[in-house]
Each structure stands twice: as structure tokens, then as C-alpha cells.
């Protein structure tokens, strides 16, 4: 039987990170993944990541995936694809099916990084073709270049629901609404805001009553729910859609661990059945570790750190490094993990109603129910100040772990400080040169450059723009406000696309001064001309 020092199950962010750390310390490492492509969810994640530099913030998911894969290859990690682990036994025997034969391997340490699968909900018609998981939509669009549908309803307003809704818009689909049974939007306000400003309405406290259609989905009926999650009669709303996307959370894919004899617990806060493990990810079976979503649902950034820790721990378990080295190196990683687990969306705070930011600013309630802040609310926050000339307007109102804007400004106009969940502050005593680096660095697309003094009667607003076809200078369209309502004509003055912006284009539009503080999105009118 072929032996490895370390076998990693799953080539996602956690698995690859674990393999890299193990290989770096001299272990012979194999990674098995059932998919045809490595990277887990990373290659579907076309948005820029949150966090700070050490968490690879402002880098897009697929670039992080490519980076990990390259490191793994350089270190001689044996990454095997289309290789499904169909069995894992207590004596660390791994049984793999490679679509032709079943092969047995043995390892001295095993790291299970199998990730998670999507939850679903039952409603009348849920088995009709056209009802799909948000992850499936992401796979179709971002891996295979296929539009999942023309008109989509999204169920679930967590980060997955919000991010995928935005990607559906980018792919050219129409999103008729994002709905959620909860009374508040579950994901980051900045993710909701970038969906809302394109004109997508949110229906909170709503759920799906029925998907209609004969051979496939042709419509959906939603309704408002009361405190006991029962539909309130008379609140039914109907949409013509061909696709219903479900984004109602994830469940750890932990069955292999149960099979290997690891002690398991039911932990709803972790998304379901997970193994018990220590700070290094070691389960009750010595030498079998877990990392990433399989040990509790979080996100890719923390999965990578957990992967690194378990990889280092496996090296220590086999004696490739001293226990003191493990302690030291794990401490660095744990600090980095701690930094990500702070703020309003920290694991323990999920679903709780939070009234104020850490700094004491009142949280926008319209942001939580409609997906955007009102003009009155926006000015509360320290990133929004009225000054002469061009300056950033940072509409960041929740304590989330993210700080690339601070480092992006060559003039130090933006301050966050040591604590990466703090709200960014615009220092009005500095001079903005209008380079736009802050806009491109903001993973939440919540920074704008505003100039109310360039031309009499007009305001110039530079927005992040990630849609095709790209408008060009001179195009005339409509300015949309934060809620996606048309508020006046807009003319494109400039579109900047620099390599440093990493595929975020900076579109500068000119609107009438009266709507300058309201205009936050540009709607192209070209299609209308074509139809005429």
C-alpha cells in the first residue's frame, strides 16, 4: 500500500493550505479531491476578499486559489483530482476511487478538509428544475460560463445569497428580489448595498410558499411570515422567474470523520454535525485533523488559517518539528484567526440584533431591512465628511474585519488603526489626490470619490464598476440612488481601468448637484436605444 506522511482530503482553501505547510516541513503529502478542478470554492469566488493583508484581503478568490495551487505544486504536493475518498478508517487507511479503480492508501496523519454542502428548504414545487443552490449557480456562472437563468429569485440574505445575487447581475441575469425569512439581512451591509443600488428589492420576513411551473419553474409565490414563521394571509406576492436560488446556509460534510471513529457533536452554531477537536484541529483520533468548514461553517479566509495550523500540527505530530515550534507558529496563526473573528458578524454574534457599532454609531436600520442606507443615515459615519474638492466618501457602517482601504491611500487620508474591524475614518485634514486606489481596494465596493466643486451645478462621482459592457466616456445614462431608484441623468466623464485596480473599473459620472450625495450607481441606457 502506498504510504504518505500526510493525506489531505479536499483541495479547497483549508486542504491546500494544510498540504503546503506540511510539505514545507518535509512531509510527503498527497491531496485527494473528488472534483475535476482544484481549489474548492475559491475558483468560484470572483469577488475581492475581506480581512487584512495577511488574510489576502482585496485579492480575488480565484487568484488566491491559483497562488495556493502553485505553492503546493512547487513543494511537490501530490494533488490528485477526480479522486473521491470513499472510505476513511481509524488506522488511517484512505480508500480512493479514481473513476476506474478503488485504491487503498495509508498515511501517518490525515487532515480532513472536505468543506460543506448547501442546505435546502422544502416548499411546494421545490423539486422542479430551476430550483438550485446558490453554490450551483456560482459553479455554472463562474466556472463554466453558463447563465443559470434569465430571471432569478434569491432565497437567503446571508453573505452567500448577497454575493451570488451580485454575481448573477454581473452575468446579466435579472434578480427580481432577495428574500429572507429573518427580519434582518444576514450578510454584510456592504454586500447588500451593492445589490440594492442596482435596483434589486429586498423582502425580509418573507419566505417561499410555492414554486410554480409544469416541467420547470415559471414562477414563484412568496409571502410574509409572522413571529412563528407562519405565512400571513393576504401578503402573497407573485414573480415570474425561471430560476429560484437557495442560499440558506451550509452543513459540514463530516461523514468521513464519523466513519473514522472520531467523536462527533451536534452543534447548530457550527452548522450541524462536527467532530470535537482541539485548537490545532486534532480530533479524538490522534493524528486525524480537521480544518475549514467541515469543523464548523465559517469562510475561506479562516479556512486557510485553520488549514495552516493543522498542517503545522501534523508536522509536529510526526516529529518533523519540535512541539515548541508548533506552539510558536500556531500562536501567530491564531492571532490572525482571532482578528477575523471579531466584529458584528463574529461567530458568536450571528443573527443577533446589534444597535450600535463598537465606536457608538447607531446602525442603519434601513441597511438591515432594505439593503441600503438613507442619505440622512450615511452622514453619521466617520468615513463620510463634507469637504471641498475631490475626496473619498466611505459608506462603511458595520464593524467587519477589513482594512485594505487604509493601506491603499498614498496620502494617508483613511484611518482604521490596529483593530481591523474599526470603521474607516476619513481625515479631512489630508489632501485627496483622486487616484481611486481606495475605491478599487474596497472589497465591499462602498467607497466613492465625490467632487462637488469641479463644475458649477454638477457633482462628479467616481464609483466602482464591475459590469460589462463597460461604458465609455461621453455615454449618457441614468444615475441611480442607493436603493436603485432613478434620480436623474448622468454622463460618463471617464472610465479608468488600471492593472492596480484588479478588474474593478472606476467610472466617473457627472450628475446635477442636487442629487450628488444620492447618486451611487450608473445605469446604461444603451440597451434601450438598441431596442428602439
Amino acid at each position: 500500500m502506498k504510504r504518505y506522511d500526510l493525506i489531505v482530503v479536499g483541495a479547497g482553501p483549508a486542504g491546500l493550505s494544510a498540504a503546503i505547510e506540511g510539505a514545507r516541513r518535509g512531509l510527503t503529502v498527497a491531496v485527494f479531491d473528488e472534483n475535476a478542478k482544484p481549489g474548492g470554492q475559491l475558483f468560484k469566488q470572483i469577488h475581492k476578499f475581506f480581512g487584512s493583508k495577511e488574510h489576502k484581503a482585496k485579492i480575488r478568490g480565484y487568484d488566491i486559489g491559483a497562488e495556493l495551487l502553485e505553492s503546493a505544486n512547487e513543494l511537490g504536493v501530490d494533488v490528485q483530482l477526480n479522486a473521491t475518498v470513499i472510505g476513511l478508517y481509524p488506522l488511517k487507511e484512505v480508500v480512493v476511487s479514481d473513476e476506474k479503480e478503488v485504491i487503498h492508501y495509508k498515511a501517518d496523519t490525515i487532515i480532513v478538509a472536505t468543506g460543506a454542502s448547501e442546505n435546502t428548504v422544502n416548499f411546494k414545487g421545490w423539486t422542479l428544475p430551476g430550483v438550485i443552490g446558490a453554490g450551483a449557480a456560482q459553479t455554472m456562472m463562474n466556472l463554466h460560463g453558463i447563465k443559470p437563468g434569465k430571471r432569478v429569485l434569491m432565497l437567503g440574505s446571508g453573505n452567500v445569497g448577497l454575493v451570488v445575487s451580485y454575481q448573477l447581475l454581473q452575468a446579466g441575469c435579472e434578480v427580481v428580489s432577495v428574500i429572507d425569512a429573518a427580519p434582518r439581512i444576514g450578510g454584510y451591509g456592504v454586500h447588500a448595498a451593492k445589490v440594492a443600488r442596482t435596483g434589486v428589492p429586498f423582502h425580509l420576513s418573507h419566505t417561499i410558499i410555492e414554486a410554480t411551473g409544469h416541467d420547470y419553474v415559471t414562477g414563484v409565490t412568496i409571502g410574509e411570515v409572522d413571529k412563528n414563521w407562519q405565512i400571513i394571509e393576504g401578503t402573497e406576492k407573485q414573480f415570474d422567474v425561471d430560476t429560484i436560488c437557495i442560499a440558506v446556509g451550509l452543513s459540514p460534510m463530516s461523514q468521513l470523520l464519523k466513519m473514522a471513529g472520531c467523536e462527533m457533536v451536534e452543534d447548530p452554531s457550527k452548522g450541524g454535525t462536527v467532530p470535537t477537536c482541539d485548537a490545532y484541529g486534532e480530533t479524538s483520533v490522534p493524528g486525524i485533523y480537521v480544518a475549514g468548514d467541515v469543523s464548523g461553517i465559517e469562510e475561506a479566509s479562516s479556512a486557510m488559517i485553520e488549514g495552516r495550523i493543522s498542517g503545522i500540527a501534523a508536522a509536529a505530530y510526526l516529529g518533523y518539528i519540535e512541539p515548541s515550534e508548533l506552539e510558536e507558529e500556531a500562536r501567530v496563526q491564531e492571532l490572525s484567526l482571532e482578528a477575523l473573528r471579531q466584529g458584528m458578524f463574529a461567530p458568536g454574534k450571528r443573527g443577533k440584533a446589534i444597535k450600535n457599532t463598537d465606536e457608538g454609531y447607531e446602525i442603519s436600520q434601513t441597511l438591515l431591512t432594505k439593503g441600503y442606507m438613507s442619505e440622512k443615515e450615511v452622514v453619521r459615519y466617520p468615513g463620510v465628511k463634507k469637504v471641498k474638492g475631490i475626496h473619498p466618501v466611505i459608506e462603511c457602517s458595520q464593524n467587519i474585519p477589513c482594512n485594505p482601504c487604509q493601506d491603499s491611500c498614498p496620502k494617508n487620508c483613511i484611518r482604521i488603526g490596529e483593530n481591523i474591524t474599526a470603521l474607516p475614518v476619513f481625515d479631512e485634514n489630508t489632501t485627496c489626490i483622486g487616484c481611486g486606489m481606495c475605491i478599487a481596494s474596497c472589497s465591499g465596493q462602498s467607497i466613492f470619490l465625490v467632487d462637488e466643486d469641479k463644475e458649477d451645478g454638477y457633482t462628479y462621482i467616481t464609483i466602482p464598476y464591475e459590469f460589462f459592457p463597460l461604458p465609455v466616456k461621453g455615454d449618457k445614462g441614468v444615475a441611480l440612488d442607493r436603493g436603485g431608484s432613478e434620480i436623474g441623468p448622468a454622463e460618463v466623464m471617464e472610465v479608468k481601468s488600471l492593472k492596480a485596480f484588479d478588474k474593478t473599473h472606476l467610472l466617473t459620472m457627472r450628475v446635477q448637484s442636487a442629487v450628488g450625495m444620492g447618486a451611487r450607481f450608473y445605469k446604461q441606457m444603451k440597451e434601450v436605444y438598441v431596442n428602439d
Partner: protein
Amino acid sequence: MTEKISKIIDRSIDLKPFVSEKDDEMIVCRCEEVTKGQVREAVHAGMYTLQEVRKYLRTGMGLCQGQTCGKLVKKIIAKERGIAPMDLASAVGRAPMRPVEMAVLANEKKEG
């Protein structure tokens, strides 16, 4: 811990009489085409755990191996029994963990 175990295996509790619900016809396990009503009836017939319902109705025994319906079936069983879903153990994990063609399964190579 003892309390939890007794809760799981306590078969002496009286379930409320079976009353059909309007969405009983809805499929919960799509691989094996098992409806919500069938799962509810199974509980009333004495199948108190995920494992028992699985053997009785084949829920979670299809292509997805319970990845889609596991949580849903659990919720239904728990509700019928009047306990929390987290008090029910997940189904046992067995090889092959994923669907494998018979030809592949039969082609076992001892030396990897």
C-alpha cells in the same frame, strides 16, 4: 449525558396521534422519492431515529447520501417526537461514502 441518551432511546413516550398535514405529499428525500407524510408515518410506526427511518424508507440512501435531505428528515422526526433536532444523532457514515459504479468498486487495487 445520561439524560440525553434516555431521551433518544425512550420508546415509552406517547406520541400524539397521527394527523395528516396538508404538505404531507411533499417530497423530502428526492433521490428515493420519500414524502414528508411517509417520514411522519414511519415515526408513528416506531422508527425513532434517523438510522431507523433510513432503513425503513431509504431516506438518505440515494445518490446524495443524505447530504440534501439529512437535516430535513431529522427536523421532521424531531418534531413528531417533540424533541430538538440536535438531540438526534446523524446517520452512520459508511463506505462507499459517495456513489461508485459497481465496475469501479469491483476493481479494487490493494497497492496504491
